[in-house]
């Protein structure tokens, strides 16, 4: 039964993947090799589409693979398989956290977790920023320092940063939509 198998494979992925998103790729490669449901070339296309659509990348990949293997139902089954371990584990942990909410150990653990988390989020944001504002490959090719900077991207980043801090009530979606239009108009 293909649906059970899909559910099982993605349940396993959801259970063992850490960090989500692109971390699911090695698991999908393994599924591809083991089952032959899709080729590595197809996987590459699926990654490109998952990155170029809204929603968590890992979830997009699960839906795409499921749909490719077994149509609409396949997409739903694979996606549910992927998030089922999250639902089980996160509910257990949430329950424990509420139960021991007043424990000084939990409090002390979060005292250390918060700055660490913030640092990880910051470095993830900066990594994307670096990729979109600096063309390191182009710089290596041409040897010209000026080709390192993606001036269009840098201007956009500065404008968004200034506007979003001046007009704090503007919804983040407004900035996303404007950036998409600017990207298309100015050929980013």
């Amino acid at each position: 039964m293909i649906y059970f198998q899909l559910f099982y494979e993605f349940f396993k992925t959801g259970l063992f993947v850490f960090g989500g998103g692109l971390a699911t790729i090695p698991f999908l490669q393994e599924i591809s090799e083991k089952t032959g449901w899709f080729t590595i070339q197809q996987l590459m296309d699926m990654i490109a589409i998952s990155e170029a659509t809204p929603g968590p990348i890992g979830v997009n990949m699960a839906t795409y693979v499921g749909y490719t293997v077994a149509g609409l139902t396949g997409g739903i089954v694979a996606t549910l398989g992927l998030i089922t371990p999250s639902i089980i584990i996160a509910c257990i942990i949430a329950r424990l956290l509420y139960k021991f909410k007043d424990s000084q150990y939990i409090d002390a653990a979060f005292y250390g977790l918060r700055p660490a988390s913030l640092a990880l989020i910051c470095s993830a944001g900066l990594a994307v920023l670096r990729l979109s504002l600096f063309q390191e490959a182009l710089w290596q090719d041409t040897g010209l320092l000026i080709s390192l900077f993606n001036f269009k991207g840098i201007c956009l980043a500065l404008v968004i940063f200034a506007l979003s801090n001046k007009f704090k009530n503007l919804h983040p979606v407004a900035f996303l939509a404007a950036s998409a239009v600017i990207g298309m108009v100015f050929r980013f």
Partner: protein
Amino acid sequence: MKVYLQLFFTFTYIGAVSFGGGYSMLPMFQRELVSKKAWLSETEMIDYFSVSQCLPGIIAANAAVFVGYKQKKVFGGIIAAIGAVFPSLVIITIIAALLTNFAEIELVQNAFAGIRVCVSVLIINTVIRLWKQAIIDKSTLVLFSLVFLLSVLTSLPVAIMVAVAGTTGIAIQMLRKVMKAK
């Protein structure tokens, strides 16, 4: 019933406007769940993300479950997680059925290059905003700097860095207590 519908649609909305998953959901969480709905405080939001990233599974799904659980226990967690993946199901199914060359369309590539710049600026904004909640003294500043350097310079697994930071937090607080007692 109303709460379940609200949970579902709020997470459907967040899922539909988050590009890249995981951390890119943070600005949306901040706006929709903290500022608008007041379902969480900023501190709770950081706490949920901290735990979500060291549990197995997709960070976005884990964080959704935590928020749903706070509202309506297990069933709330399930509804929130399904809400968060619903847009992916719809959008990806349509693209897989009709537009398999979607990612190669030049306009799409241009639009997403713009969106990526925006998402990263929004994430940095959120970090600045959460700074006061997380960095409250010298020890937390040192922890932030250490983890930041480690994550930029090495490829250490996130779960390990987070686990060590949590343990360090406990150690620092216990040490303080002992010093105080003396």
